[in-house]
């Protein structure tokens, strides 16, 4: 057994204003996941269903910030993770959700819940359980310090693997041509 080997690094992941595409791309590392779980164990993540992030070595954030809850989760990750990684276009620059930024929030809510065809009696949801939307969508580096970025929509499994293996080996992560993509 590997009982005497180094303690495993703890990794947490989450999706904020994202589509889970980056998490799907992470799963695209396929059988390399078996190598990965020899080196790391997961804390809060859609893979574990743990609800709050505890002390971790690496936090991986998919998605930008479009509501108040996103900001709370991001701060929880930053407070608990030694190294924080932004993964994917939405975390890095706001991505698709940020395409609403040139519209007023009021006009968007109006359009989505009132004005559109078939919504005559619609109302804007105001249950206190619902996190309040932010006026604008922001990439995560505008709110907390981010240590590393993996751009791409989504980044390829190979790009994610490269950054993770660089970090696990104590190297400065580097992507280079073919792995660095913004699309």
């Amino acid at each position, binding site marked *: 057994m590997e009982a005497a080997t180094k303690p495993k690094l703890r990794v947490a992941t989450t999706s904020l204003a994202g589509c889970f595409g980056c998490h799907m791309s992470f799963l695209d590392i396929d059988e390399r996941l078996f190598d990965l779980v020899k080196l790391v164990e997961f804390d809060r993540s859609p893979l574990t269903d743990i609800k709050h992030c505890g002390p971790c070595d690496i936090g991986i954030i998919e998605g930008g910030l479009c509501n108040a809850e996103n900001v709370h989760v991001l701060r929880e990750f930053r407070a608990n993770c030694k190294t924080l990684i932004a993964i994917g276009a939405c975390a890095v620059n*706001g991505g698709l959700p*940020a*395409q609403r930024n*040139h519209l007023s929030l009021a006009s968007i809510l109006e359009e989505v819940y009132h004005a559109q065809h078939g919504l005559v009696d619609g109302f804007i949801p105001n249950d206190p359980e619902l996190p309040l939307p932010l006026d604008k969508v922001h990439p995560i580096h505008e709110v907390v310090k981010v240590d590393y970025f993996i751009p791409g929509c989504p980044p390829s499994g190979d790009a994610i693997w490269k950054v993770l293996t660089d970090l696990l080996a104590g190297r400065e992560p*580097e992507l280079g*041509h073919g792995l660095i993509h*913004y699309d």
Partner: protein
Amino acid sequence: MSQNNNQPASFELDGKTIPFQAGQTIIQAAMAAGVYIPHLCFNPEFKPHGSCKLCTVKANGRQTASCTQQAQAGMVVESDTKELNDERRALLQMLFVEGNHFCPSCEKSGNCQLQATAYEMDMMSPHFDHFFPDRPVDASHAEYLLDFNRCILCSLCVRASRDVDGKNVFALSGRGIKTHLIVNARSGHLADTDFSGADKAAQVCPVGVILKKRVGFAVPIGERSFDQQPISATPHPMKQEG
């Protein structure tokens, strides 16, 4: 500085000897020798504009735009250094946050010089806070659309329309951070100009502003020019799809 008349004049670029002809700029001579210096507003077919500063090098220890600085015999030029590339990356990051560059939905992605130059400079994040400006698209023309969200104010369309097409369809207006591209029509709309798809101005935009309608994604993302090879390996990166 005496030159042997049988030998072409030359200067040194990152330790490499680059021959040049009288009147050539540093970037022209470097390009002719197959050496890449990052650039955005320079296009070998046009007079230099000297505005983006991506091509900044150190010539004899002083920073200068290599697209406007004439080559001189014996000059010692540095370009591919950490210091200059760090500054180039910062310029690129500013260009990204000043506009709206959502590459996944941009028809130019993979053929875009801004994006490819950012890849070349290992730009992993925009670093600065985004402006998220509001710049409506001009879709008035039957065949072409203008997505101002991606304009980097390189003035290539201005130069092409004025100097090659003889039409003056485009101009840069305003100053400093307020500089923006305008269309010379009373309405401000492309449809109300004599712009045509046969114009040189329709071919020169290094980013995804001036786009032909109805040719979207003829070549899939991932198979486009700078997906195949980095911009530094592309001798003349002026490439327009569609």
